[in-house]
C-alpha cells in the first residue's frame, strides 16, 4: 500500500511538471465545449430554393411567398429557365428547384388537379429528405388555404380533419446543444484520458525511465494501479470543468442525480484508462501508440452514437457498438442529464462497462512485462 502511495506521488509530480499537458487538460475542454456544439448542428434550416415559375400567375406568386415566409427557405433564384436553376444546384447555390408549370392556376381551377415538380439535391440525404418534407407540408397547407378560399361556402362538403398535437419531452424547445453537450463531454474525456494514458508507459519506455521501475520489486498490478488512479482523478477534473461549462454557458443542469453521474464517470474512466494503458503496453514508440489510439478513437467516435443514432445502424454494426465503452457512457449521460433516469435504468450499462474495465486492466497487467 505504501508503495502505491509513493508511486502515485511520482505520477502526479510527472503530470504537474509538464505545463503543456496541464494547459491542454484545462483549456481544451473549455474551448471545445464552446465551439463544438455550435458547429455540430444537424438542424436543417436555410434551405436554398430556386423557383422556376412558368406560370407567373397570382396563385404561383402566393405559393412562392408562402414558401419564403417560412423561416426554412431562402430564395436562391427566381426564373423562367429550368436550365439556369439546375445550374444553381450544380454549383451548390440551390438545394431545391421548384418548377411551377405554365397554366398552373388555370388548370387547377379547370381540372381540379395540377402537378408541381420538385428536384432536390440529394447528395446529403438527410437534408434532402427533411427539406422536401418541409416543402411538401407548406404546399399542402397552401392547398388547403386556396381550397377554403375558392370553395363556395354552401357547397362545403365537410372534410374530416385530424389535428395533430405534438409535444416534445425533455427538450421542448428542441435545442440541439442540449443533446450534443453531454455527448461531447464524453468525447472530450475520451480523447484526453485515452491519449494521455496511451502515451504514458510508452514515453517512460522511450526515455528509458521504465528500466528503473522494472528493477525494483514493485508488483505489476501495483504499477498499473499507480498509473490508473492519477488519470481517473484528472479525468474527473476535466469532467467537472465540462459540467461547469455546460451549466454556465448552455444552462444544462443534470436532471438526474449528480452523484450517480460521477459514479458512472469513475467506472467509465477506469475502463478507458485501462484501454489506454493496454495500448501503451503494446507499443514501442510514441508514434505507434499514436497510430493505435487514433485508429481506435476514430472508430469509437463514429460508432458511439454521438453523431448518428445507433438505432439507424444495421444489426452487425449495433453489435459492434456494444463493445465500445464510449457508446455506453454517451447513452447514460444523455439519460441522466436530460431525462433524469435513475440507477436501475442504467444498471445494465454500469455492469457491462465495469466488466470491460476489469478485462482491459487485467489484460494490461498481464501484458506489461518487466523483462524484455
Amino acid at each position, binding site marked *: 500500500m505504501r508503495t502505491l502511495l509513493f508511486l502515485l506521488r511520482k505520477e502526479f509530480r510527472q503530470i504537474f511538471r509538464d505545463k*503543456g499537458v496541464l494547459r*491542454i487538460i484545462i483549456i*481544451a475542454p473549455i474551448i471545445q465545449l464552446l465551439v463544438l456544439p455550435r*458547429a*455540430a*448542428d*444537424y*438542424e*436543417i*434550416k436555410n434551405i436554398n430554393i430556386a423557383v422556376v415559375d412558368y406560370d407567373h400567375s397570382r396563385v404561383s406568386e402566393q405559393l412562392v411567398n408562402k414558401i419564403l415566409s417560412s423561416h426554412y427557405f431562402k430564395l436562391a433564384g427566381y426564373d423562367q429557365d429550368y436550365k439556369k436553376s439546375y445550374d444553381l444546384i450544380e454549383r451548390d447555390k440551390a438545394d431545391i428547384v421548384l418548377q411551377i408549370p405554365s397554366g398552373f392556376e388555370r388548370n387547377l381551377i379547370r381540372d*381540379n*388537379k395540377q*402537378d*408541381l415538380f*420538385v*428536384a*432536390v*439535391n*440529394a*447528395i446529403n*440525404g*438527410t437534408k*434532402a*429528405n427533411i427539406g422536401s*418534407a418541409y*416543402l*411538401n407540408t407548406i404546399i*399542402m397547407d397552401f392547398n388547403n388555404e386556396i381550397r377554403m378560399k375558392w*370553395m363556395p361556402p354552401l357547397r362545403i362538403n365537410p372534410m*374530416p*380533419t*385530424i*389535428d*395533430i*398535437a405534438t409535444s416534445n*419531452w425533455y*427538450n*421542448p424547445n*428542441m435545442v*440541439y446543444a442540449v*443533446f450534443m453537450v453531454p455527448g461531447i463531454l464524453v468525447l472530450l474525456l475520451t480523447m484526453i484520458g485515452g491519449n494521455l494514458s496511451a*502515451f504514458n508507459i510508452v514515453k517512460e519506455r522511450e526515455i528509458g525511465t521504465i528500466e528503473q521501475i522494472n528493477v525494483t520489486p514493485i508488483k505489476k498490478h501495483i504499477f498499473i494501479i499507480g498509473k490508473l488512479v492519477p488519470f481517473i482523478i484528472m479525468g474527473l477534473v476535466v469532467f467537472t470543468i465540462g459540467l461547469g461549462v455546460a451549466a454556465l454557458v448552455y444552462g444544462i443542469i443534470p436532471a438526474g442525480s449528480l452523484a450517480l453521474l460521477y459514479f458512472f464517470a469513475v467506472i467509465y474512466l477506469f475502463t478507458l484508462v485501462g484501454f489506454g494503458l493496454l495500448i501503451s503496453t503494446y*507499443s514501442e514508440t*510514441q*508514434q505507434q501508440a499514436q497510430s*493505435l489510439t*487514433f*485508429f481506435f478513437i476514430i*472508430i469509437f467516435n*463514429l460508432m458511439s452514437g454521438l*453523431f*448518428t*443514432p445507433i438505432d*439507424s*445502424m444495421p444489426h452487425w454494426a449495433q453489435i459492434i457498438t456494444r463493445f465500445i465503452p464510449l457508446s455506453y457512457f454517451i447513452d447514460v449521460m*444523455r*439519460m441522466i442529464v436530460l431525462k433524469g*433516469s*435513475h440507477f436501475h*435504468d442504467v444498471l445494465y450499462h454500469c455492469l457491462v462497462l465495469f466488466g470491460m474495465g476489469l478485462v482491459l486492466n487485467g489484460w494490461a497487467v498481464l501484458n506489461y512485462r518487466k523483462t524484455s
Partner: protein
Amino acid sequence: MRQFINFIKKEFYHVLRDPKTLLMLFGVPIAQIVLFGFALSNEIKNANIVIIDNGMDMASQQLVYKIKASKYFNVKEVFMNPDQIDAAFKSGTVKLALVIPSGFNNDLVHLHKSGLQIIADASDPNTATTLTNYMTAIIEDYQGQLWQENGMPYVINSEQRMLYNPELVGAPNFVPGVMAMVLLLICVMMTSISIVKEKELGTLEVLLVSPFNPFMVIISKMVPYIVVSLINVCIILLLSVFLLDLPMKGSLLLLFGESLLFIITALSLGLLISTITDTQQTAMTTSFLAMLLPTMLLGGYLFPIENMPWLLRVISNIVPAKWFYIIIKSIMLKGLGIKYIWKETLILAGMALFFIVVSIKNFKIRLQ
C-alpha cells in the same frame, strides 16, 4: 540524383517497417469507408414506438395498421397512462408515443374533426423531429385517403425527384469527406511527426550538416507519404465504386490532379507544423487541434456549414478540406468539369503556396 533516390528509399523503409503505423495508414481509410458506407446513417428505421389506442374503433384500427406497415416504426400497442410513457422514455426503450383519443372514429364521422397526440422523446431533437415527421406524414396520408373517398377539389400534387442520390443513402455525402480527412491525416500528421522525430532524436542535424541540400532532405521525407496518399485515393475510389456503388461521373484524371494538389497543400501544412514544434507530442497535439478537429467540424461533410454561427462560417473558409470536399463532390457525383471548380482549385493552390512560403521562412538549417 542517385543520392536523392537513396534518401527516398531510406524514408520508405522508415514508413513501411512498422506494421502498427501501417494499420493507421491503410486501416483508417478502409475502416472509415466501410463504417460510413454501411454503418452510419441518419436515416431512422424500425424505431420503437408505442401506440396508445383509446379509440379501438374502425378509424383507429385503420390508422394503426397503416403505421405498422411502414418500415420506420416498430409498433407496440399498449395501454399506458402518461406516467408510464415517462418511465418508458427514461429507460430508453421507446422513442415516440402516439395517443389516439377515445371516440376517434365517431368524432371524424360526425364532427368531421378529431385530434391525435404525438409525444416524442426530444432529448435527441434530430430523431424526435424525423420520427414526428414520418408519423405526421402517415397520418396526413390517412387523412388524404379519407378525403379521396369524399371527392376532393383543387388538388396540388407535388412530384419529387431526388438528384444524384435517389435512395438517399449517406455514402455520397461522406465519401468525399473521408477522402479529405484521410489525406490530411497522413500528410499533415505523419509528415510533421516524422520530421519532428528526427529533430527530437538529433538525427536531423546529422542530415543538415551533410553536403546534401537541406530542402532535398525534406522533400525526400515527403515522397513516401505522397505515394501512400495516392494509393489511398485509389483504395477509397475502388471501395466506393465497387463496394458502395457510388458513381464516378467526372474525369478520373481531374480527380487525381485535384487530389495531388490537396496532398501538396496538406504536406506543406505538415511541414509548417514541423518547423514550429520541437517534440512529437506537441506536433501531434498541434496537428490534432489545428487540423483534424476543424476538418471534421468545419469541412462541411458532417455538419452543414450554412447552419453555423457566422464566425464559424468565416473560419470554415480557411479549412482546406472544405474546398477539397466541394471539388470531389462535384467531380465524382455531379460529373462537373474544371469550369465549375476552378475557384476552389485556385484557393487550394493559394493555400499551398502560402504554407510553403511560411515554412521556408521558418525553416532553420543552422543549429541554435
